[in-house]
């Protein structure tokens, strides 16, 4: 057992850290530090900087621009991005649609879509959830009817993150309603957001931010060549994607940075007795418990990576564990940060309160934490 990174891994980390220091634009760094909303242009600018460096899609095959990094290197890269406070890489193209096309797409689809995803020329969003289909995704109703060379899509998607920025949406749609098993008759379609009949309506959340949308489809014509994999086999694609989605689900680097910020902030804030809040035992104990949970999660994450590296198996239900703990930690950090703010820190309070509100999403999205528990219960424990 050796919990230390190897010399090569440490060198790699230094290289990534040095590059990020030199190439992360200051204005983006500042926006992340103050929790400002990022524009479409902000997100794409960072995407393109990484694309130019060849680091935007580490997990992709080499021929499509992947880095050939091993699992630990990929983890280090993600951790360093989190620590540096880079804008997020929006996952819908790079980590979701891209891998799906790589796995299930035709050569024509690969050539048409992958380079544009890689270069950040197309902004993608995800069309999964519907008003009546949240955790119970297989109950989705958005319909696609085959008419000649097209599907005619009708229905509604919701919680569409950054749909208002998107050029394309990948959707799960129902192509056959006659089957008794709900998972059958679902298909995976790629839809150009400029197609007539698509309406995007913002959903403003309690933090005041515009992040998610409703997307309405009214007789939207989608060419059949935009079907990925076989008609009716969309559930297979969706399941593959779920396994692929959550490698960095623990968000260790980001949480480490937030923890350091919280410590610094709690060191400036004063408790009732005039001493730094950070020295107040009641506050400090809460903070330490989160810090320790994060230390444990980092090692748990590395243990799982180490296992995967040895076994060559893709991540299983273990990832659900990382999602549960990682998001609980993220929420706890936002909660303590807001608690640390008071009337002498009104400026900070506004940003921290927004973030506290916004981060309630983390235990709900990408399969709520209760769904994750169902997955572990079934897959790992056999219940």
């Amino acid at each position: 057992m050796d919990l230390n990174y190897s010399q090569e891994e440490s060198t790699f980390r230094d290289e990534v850290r040095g590059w990020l220091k030199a190439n992360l634009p200051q204005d983006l760094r500042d926006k992340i530090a103050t929790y400002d909303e990022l524009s479409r242009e902000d997100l794409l600018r960072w995407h393109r900087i990484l694309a130019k460096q060849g680091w935007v899609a580490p997990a992709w095959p080499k021929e499509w621009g992947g880095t050939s990094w091993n699992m630990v290197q990929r983890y280090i890269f993600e951790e360093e991005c989190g620590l540096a406070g880079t804008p997020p890489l929006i996952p819908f193209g790079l980590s979701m649609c891209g891998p799906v096309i790589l796995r299930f797409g035709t050569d024509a689809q690969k050539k048409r879509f992958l380079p544009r995803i890689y270069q950040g020329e197309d902004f993608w969003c995800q069309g999964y959830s519907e008003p009546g289909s949240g955790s119970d995704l297989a109950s989705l109703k958005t319909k696609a009817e085959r008419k000649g060379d097209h599907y005619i899509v009708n229905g509604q998607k919701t919680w569409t993150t950054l749909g208002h920025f998107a050029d394309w949406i990948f959707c799960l749609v129902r192509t056959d309603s006659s089957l008794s098993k709900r998972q059958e008759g679902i298909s995976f379609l790629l839809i150009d957001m400029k197609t007539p009949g698509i309406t995007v309506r913002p959903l403003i959340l309690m933090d005041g931010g515009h992040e998610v949308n409703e997307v309405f489809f009214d007789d939207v014509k989608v060419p059949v060549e935009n079907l990925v994999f076989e008609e009716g086999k969309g559930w297979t694609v969706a399941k593959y994607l779920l396994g692929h989605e959550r490698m960095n689900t623990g968000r260790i680097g980001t949480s480490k940075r937030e923890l350091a910020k919280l410590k610094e902030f709690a060191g400036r804030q004063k408790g009732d007795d005039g001493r730094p809040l950070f020295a107040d035992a009641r506050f400090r104990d809460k903070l330490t418990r989160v810090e320790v949970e994060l230390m444990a999660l980092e090692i748990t994450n590395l243990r799982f990576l180490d296992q995967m590296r040895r076994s060559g198996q893709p991540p299983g239900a273990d990832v659900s564990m990382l999602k549960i703990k990682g998001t609980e930690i993220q929420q706890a950090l936002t909660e303590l940060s807001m608690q640390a703010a008071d009337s002498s820190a009104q400026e900070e309070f506004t940003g921290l309160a927004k973030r506290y509100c916004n981060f309630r999403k983390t235990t709900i999205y990408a399969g709520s934490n209760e769904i994750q528990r169902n997955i572990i219960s079934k897959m790992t424990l056999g219940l």
Partner: protein
Amino acid sequence: MNFDYNEEQQLLADSVRRFLAKGYDFEARRKIVASKEGWSPAVWSTISEMGLTGLPFSPDYGGFGGGAVDLMGVMEAAGEALLVEPYLATVGLGAQFVSRAGSDAQKKAILPAVVEGKLKMAFAHTEKGARYNLAKVDVQAKRAGAGWEISGEKFVVLGAPVADKFVVSAKTDKGLSLFLVDSKNTKIKPYVTLDKQRAGDVGFSKAQGELIGPEGGALAVIEEVVDFATALICAEAVGAMKFACDTTLEYLKTRKQFGVPIGTFQALQHRIVDMYVSYEQAKSMACLAASKADSPVDAGDRARSISAAKIKIADNCRHISQEAIQLHGGMGMTDEMKVSHSFRRLTMIAQQFGDAEHHLARFARLG
């Protein structure tokens, strides 16, 4: 980076597990616990034949030169089996002081006997009112000819009724110091602890003692050895947690109510999932504790990491042990179910060498 045991460590852990599964099942343990002595000379002799009593000591004295990481698999297996033999008291505590601070003559006189399983030891340190403060000692040592005389009383000394020799902390004019004292020179009030181990209060009345290490300079080595032993019980906790989780899972699959296994109920599924999450997090921190006990950057790094580990282990000991009982229902509370014994051991580990609050304060002090 590598989180696996090496081949030797794995083989050893497997053979310990095999032995304990056969020779130390719950029925065998029940008999040992109920015996007057509360430990088994036969088990102890097998343990030392397997090399376990020599594992963390120098080859110069017949040992294998291992560290906390080498002991992890052994302690996990001990935790699963709820071993009550005086292993921690002897190998993890008493003899560690000799190994780390003793003179060559003391090592020669003691360590080979420990390695061979002929000598059992205990660490007599805690006093009334000291709680988990390792520096708070009132027992006195005075020079008497070439040696020392120790006077005072120690409480809840793990393994006291079984020990042949004690390592005792006492104050001299120069401060906190350590002494070797023969058990025949002590007065022991023995008892059985909540988790069925043997312990006792130990009285010293001008007991003849031999100084170990520098006079007045014992605190650093006490902290080092207690941190080492803490790393060991973290690993033991992981084993006991694994047992508690696995046996609860088995129960959920077999116990039927309303005509179905109770494991089909989501309310219970989510609770046992959280137990396994707690177990994995605890295991990660036990890995950290063991590797920092062996190769810290410095004493502060070691102390900080081991306190962090003990915070997590203590919290998760409570969580898992309590949930295991709740999910078993009334049956889980009965003495006849092993899960109630794992509850008791996990409860004690949560507090042994400092509860979560003690380590939260220590972690904060260390910055």
